[in-house]
């Protein structure tokens, strides 16, 4: 059986890893900020 693998593009792999990491970072910072503001809002409503 012959294995017909596509040529592997290391540069493209690094580019995708980088862009995915960047998006994950933005999402995490966004979530941290969101949870902070939710807490403040809930504390405001409770008091």
């Amino acid at each position, binding site marked *: 059986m012959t294995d017909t693998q596509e040529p*592997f*593009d290391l540069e*493209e*792999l690094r580019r*995708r*890893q980088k*862009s*995915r990491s960047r*998006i994950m970072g933005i999402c995490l910072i966004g979530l941290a900020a*969101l949870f902070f*503001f*939710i807490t*403040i*809002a*809930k504390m*405001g*409503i409770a008091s």
Partner: protein
Amino acid sequence: MTMPADWRDFLALTKPRVMSLAIFTALCGMLVAPGQVIHPVLGFTAILAIALGAGASGALNQWYEVEVDRAMKRTAGRPLPAGRMDKVSALHFGVGLGFFSVLLLGFATNWTAAIMLAVSILFYLLIYTVWLKPRTPQNIVIGGAAGAFPPVIGWAAATGDLSTSLPFISMPWMMFLLIFLWTPPHFWSLSLFVRTDYANAGIPMLPVVAGETSTRRQIFLYTLPMVACAVAIWLMGYAGPVYGVTAALLSGVFLLLALHVGFRSTTTDDGMKPERRLFWFSILYLFILFAALVADRWIGIA
């Protein structure tokens, strides 16, 4: 080593265009809810959670339907059928997003809204995608309920309550009913001009199973209760004159377009223009009607 999917493909997996209608109707449901206006941060979080829930539904739908999507020209370019993403990544993404959206909505607002969101995701995946879609031409009639949940969830997020003395004619359920009845004419007008796609994929959409003439009649027949529901929201006192006039005018136009599509000669070869027109108008119709509901409520407050 396989190439990881691009983040844009994960975004495409959430069906952003379908999501936009869910976001909008959920926001409207939230804004027309009675009582004190929801805290903006919690309102924003609720809309975000509903959007993520809709995205999870889209992702899980595409994960399940990869072979069907591959057979249809309209969907063959999606990340999974085009081979830009593996199925396991799509499944993990969909399940993760679904759980996260429900928990986020529950913690930020209330668990009534969160349960409704969970029900809508499961309904879309299990009842519509897995059960009804491959089996019956009535798939989108019942399955359309999944798309009708967002305004109810938005309302529940704002009020924490969906119970009234008459649950199925209360305002959130009237909004639900409006989208529910809107879905068949909207979707069947689309299915008329992409029916070869559905036939190739083996999906028993109405034009494939019952034929074009029958679909045209059904479009018209379903438009009648939809129009009645749109106007009933006003007549029952759930909305004021801004909505009432808008609903009456736009429903009249919808009815005329549906009448044309419903009874026109099927031999005319004009690129299905009336069907395309009805499809695009139906989207506009729902957007404007929900916007008018909000406008009415806020004019009433001002």
